[in-house]
């Protein structure tokens, strides 16, 4: 039982990080109706920003996290303004393909620029909370506990923002219909920028939280990017709640699969594939994902 609880705890923590990354993808998709292939690289940049805030500014880890989120918020807004405004123009014919190509190109640009600027060697920032927690028979690092707890706090904060504030409700309105939102006086362009900025900030938070656990490398965002899309599709494209539930579900599924798959010599190697298998099984039963909406396209 202790073994199960330990594996489930670790799985849940990683699931929260998946959820944090995936929620950013979902918000961007809901509002801008594009798949952001550079999301994993925003996660990477968030981690590095926190690292350099600690190293060069002497910021405490929590302060570095806030700084990282703020910096990537602004960066996200800038990227949206500079690269994505053709999405809103009538002259752009193939909006889906445009979004795909631009974000794909941005991903390569950010990754290779990071390689030049930050160097090829992995880096590891100071722990948020050093040491290991012994909770009964459980042994979990304080960094993981902190990452999970703060990730949950950020997700709760996001849900509050989306459902209880005017800005969040306006974002939801734009995600449902840009034209209708514009009619009632909501500026879609402003909320496009806000959506990308919030998505980037959430990715940055995930990167900064997990950096003491996984280390930083220019290509650290590649696998989380893929996992984020598994989570988003599993949860349902456009559903924030779906991304949260699916993220945690995926983290748990992967952790428990590695822990209990009958052949211990193959468990770890098949873990990622198992996650995709779960996705396929859910889509067969619910093609729009767990909480998805139909017919979500760029207007």
């Amino acid at each position, binding site marked *: 039982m202790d073994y199960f609880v330990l594996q489930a705890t670790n799985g849940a923590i990683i699931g929260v990080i998946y959820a944090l990354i995936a929620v950013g993808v979902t918000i961007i998709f809901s509002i801008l109706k594009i798949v952001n292939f550079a999301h994993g690289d925003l996660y990477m940049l968030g981690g590095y920003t926190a690292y350099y805030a600690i190293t060069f500014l002497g910021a405490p880890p929590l302060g570095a996290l806030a700084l990282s989120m703020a910096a990537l918020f602004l960066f996200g807004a800038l990227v949206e303004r500079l690269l994505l405004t053709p999405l809103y123009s009538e002259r752009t014919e193939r909006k889906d393909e445009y979004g795909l190509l631009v974000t794909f190109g941005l991903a390569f640009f950010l*990754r290779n620029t990071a390689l030049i600027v930050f160097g090829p*060697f992995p880096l590891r920032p100071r722990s948020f909370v050093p040491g290991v927690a012994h909770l009964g028979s459980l042994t979990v690092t304080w960094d993981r506990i902190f990452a999970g707890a703060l990730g949950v706090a950020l997700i709760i904060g996001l849900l509050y923002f989306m459902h209880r504030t005017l800005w969040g409700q306006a974002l939801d309105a734009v995600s449902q219909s840009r034209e209708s939102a514009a009619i009632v006086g909501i500026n879609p362009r402003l909320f496009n920028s806000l959506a990308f900025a919030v998505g980037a900030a959430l990715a940055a938070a995930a990167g900064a939280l997990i950096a003491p656990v996984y*280390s930083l490398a220019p290509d650290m965002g590649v696998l989380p990017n893929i996992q984020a899309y598994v989570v988003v599709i599993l949860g349902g494209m456009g559903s924030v709640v779906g991304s949260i539930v699916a993220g945690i579900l995926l983290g748990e599924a992967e952790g428990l699969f590695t822990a209990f798959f009958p052949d211990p010599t193959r468990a770890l190697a098949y873990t990622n594939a198992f996650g995709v298998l779960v996705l396929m099984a859910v889509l067969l039963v619910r093609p729009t994902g767990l909480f998805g909406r139909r017919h979500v396209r760029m207007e």
Partner: protein
Amino acid sequence: MGLAGVVVLVTLGVMLGPLQALLGAAEPIKLGWVGPLSPPGGYADGQLMKDAAMLATDEINAKGGVLGRRLEVSYQDTRGLPEEGTAAAERLISQEHVVAIMGEFHSSVFLAEMEVAHKNGIPIVAVDVWANKITAMGYPEVFRVAPCQALIATQWGNWIAAAGFKNVAVLYEKTDGGQSARDVLLPILRAHGIRYDVVGADLNQTDFTAQIERFKTHTPPYDLFVTIFSEAGLYPLVQQSYSAGFAPTKHTGLTNSGGPATTPTFWKNVGEAGKYLLTEVPGLPRAKWNAITTAFVANFKKRFNSPPTPQAIESYDAEYILADAIKRAGTTDPKALIAALEKTNIVLGRGRYTFATDHTPDWHYHQFVDAPVHLIQYDTVGQPPDGAPVVWPRNLATVSYVYNRPPR
């Protein structure tokens, strides 16, 4: 065209021959370098290997080049992908007309590159790729300066037996290099009656906690955790293993084969978790450094502000080996180069280089059989690899113990 025109044309044609020869003598000798410089490859190691090759190029040219001609190296980023390796080799041979190729950090990529080199009859020197298959294929164009897994994993197997371990967990990367290591190591463990379990992992894996917790539940408990992992995923693996209280502890040792435990940022990433870890160094132990090794380390540090890795010195030596072969051959003709490479007998930063020409065992062919490999065990946080105690082989050991068991 009149008779005068024909005479002019013929005269020009006759002149072009010697003119071309004159120009040719001033043309640089082009070599190709291949290796990972960007993701998803091992770009950290690739960059250090490229830096070392650049250092070698500048040194050789400063001394007048080879056969009175400058050496020019074309660097190709293979990104750790076999298809990129193939494209790079084809580009180097067909477009850049290199006389030889050297480099690579990933066995699977080199296996693709060497097919192109073999098809074109161009010599290719494997710098830091360890899969036995590379020389076992028996291609006359292929030479290897790194040790192969038959040499490395054998050292590990013999050390594991000598240190008295009985129950081993092996985590290996699912690549040609990792599988080759596994294939050499496991029979040695079996021969010594050592129990083992083997788990494969993708090279981009970063969360090992679930697997480590699973290892901890094994009965009887493992007394050694062997990791065969060549890239940055080793750092979270070591961290997570240590944090989980699995290894290194007084009950369970920890080893790594693959190289990342000797890179400049190893300690920054693992901290206390790296103390008592064992790893191999495919180079000379400090006590055996010669003047070339010492000079290379100093010059590399001065120029690149970073200590070199063993892979870097392999890259440096590989270029000197090619330069030496060209000089002895007196030509850049590929067949003559290959013949000259077979007769290599030169002392460089990793000792005296010669290449075997027999096929017994199959990996022997064109392998630097005396490639130095020794095992070190860190006993202090922040310790450089050349300052760590050498525990194996015993004729090179700098300490009386075979294994330093952690106190906790």
